[in-house]
């Protein structure tokens, strides 16, 4: 374990909204080849944590460090989301955010944007290099669609896809940005058990075949137990536990957080 390369290192991340502390000094690490999970009850601050890491919010305190392999370390605090993505960190959204009036293929092609270069003038002139680049975008996007099993829908509008397929499309779109770390925000939300099982497989495949490390948020603890290690648990903005699935299962604080959820909700 120890010799694995550390990709993402978050130290003491804190995010305040006015007087409300949504995330309270949370630290977390993701290593190469890992499928890490961040779980916790509703409103624990998981998505806010994601938004801080991907640049949508600027955290109040703490450090977010990215250690790309073979490149110098970068601090992500305050960077714009598109810069974060360029650095190799892509994400999906809890409430699906597809480009609904674009085709499935185009959605993935958008992901290729930051890895291609044709500007306005070159797009107008459309010389050979631009045409080649366009072809490359189409081909690689199509390959990604095949990987997530959506190739047959390539020319459909994204909004016409079934729910589960939309989630997979979001993953394909994120992968098109060539990340080395993929952040998935509740990828299984709203899926039926069969779809969830397929998704688990897909995530494992991405991790193994594409060598992309994954950090995923899940609300439901059971789902992540099969595929994730390590697991981090948040409650009320604080990290309350971390460790292997077995350690988490046995952790009394986690049990309390999940069992106490209903009774303490109104407090």
């Amino acid at each position: 374990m120890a010799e694995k390369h550390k990709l993402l290192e978050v130290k003491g991340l804190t995010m305040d909204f006015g007087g409300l502390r949504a995330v309270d000094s949370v630290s977390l690490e993701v290593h190469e080849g890992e499928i890490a999970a961040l779980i916790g009850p509703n409103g624990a601050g998981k998505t806010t944590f994601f938004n801080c890491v991907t640049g949508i919010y600027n955290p109040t305190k703490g450090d977010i460090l990215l250690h790309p392999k073979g490149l110098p370390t970068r601090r992500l605090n305050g960077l714009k989301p598109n810069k974060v993505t360029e650095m190799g960190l892509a994400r999906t959204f809890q409430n699906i955010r597809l480009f609904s009036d674009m085709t499935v293929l185009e959605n993935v092609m958008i992901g290729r944007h930051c890895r291609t270069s044709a500007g306005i003038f070159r797009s107008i002139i459309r010389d050979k290099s631009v045409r080649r680049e366009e072809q490359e975008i189409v081909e690689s996007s199509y390959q990604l669609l095949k990987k997530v099993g959506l190739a047959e829908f390539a020319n459909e509008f994204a909004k016409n896809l079934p729910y589960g397929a939309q989630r997979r499309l979001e993953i394909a779109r994120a992968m098109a940005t060539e990340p080395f770390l993929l952040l998935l925000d509740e990828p299984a939300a709203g899926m039926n058990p069969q779809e969830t099982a397929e998704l688990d497989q897909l995530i494992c495949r991405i991790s193994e075949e594409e060598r992309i490390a994954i950090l995923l948020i899940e609300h439901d603890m059971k789902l992540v137990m099969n595929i994730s290690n390590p697991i981090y648990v948040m409650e009320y903005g604080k990290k309350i536990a971390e460790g292997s699935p077995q350690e988490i299962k046995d952790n009394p604080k986690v049990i309390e957080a999940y069992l106490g959820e209903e009774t303490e909700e109104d407090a």
Partner: protein
Amino acid sequence: MDYFLELFLGGLTRGSIYALIALGYTMVYGIIQLINFAHGEIYMIGAFVALIVAGILTIYGFAGISVLVLAAIAAIIWACAYGYTLEKIAYRPLRGAPRLSPLISAIGMSIFLQNYVLLAQTSDFLPFPNLIPDFEFMEPVAHIIGSPELVILITTFVTMILLTLLIKKTKVGKAMRATQQDMSMARLVGINVDRIISLTFIIGSALAAIGGVLVASYIGQVNFYIGFLAGVKAFTAAVLGGIGSIPGAVLGGLVLGWTESFAAGYVSSDYEDVFAFGLLVLILILRPAGILGKARKQKV
């Protein structure tokens, strides 16, 4: 010092009218995040209806304050009816459509209503009867502030207090605030959201109509086009103050009124509008949510 005071009061008068109209913009925006571009036309229609009713009444021999009151009531009734119908026709079918659609629909409605009044009535300027009498006791200060200005200031002040009471103290007001916070949640707890939206349009229209009657009797003329500039300025005021915020709309209206008044008084009235819009751009750059607006965190 006198000069400053005059400009201050002039700006206050103008600003309080802007504020009255801006309230309509801000309340509607607060609930359905739509710039009701046709709101300025409601103001114009209010003034027109008041003119017609006042005209009929004076011709049939009525006079004095009763004409003003009856005309104002008619203006409010019809402005509310137009506001209600406007929402039903142009905005309700577009609930849930992309953001640009209701906005374009609103611009279309604004153009439509302007030309509807132009064709139904006239393109000419019409004289609006002078319904606000000159008060005796105002005579010594008349060169600084006249009776109509006083009436405008008092009316807007009272209207705003009533509005605040309505929103803070009544059940309807509570429902409005709830809808503004979270529409789907409000629906879940049994608030008839559609009715609340209609009500918001009606209240906004009533305020605009009051503004329309006050301005028309202040400047003494009405024309189908008066709603456009007033609407644009009032909307600017709403954005300045922080759209969605009711005290913001009032503050924004006053700030805009003073800006224009002082710009015209101390710099040049040539560039009055440039100052108004310049201020808007400046404030939006420094505080994108407006002076009193809260930055709405977009849910991701």
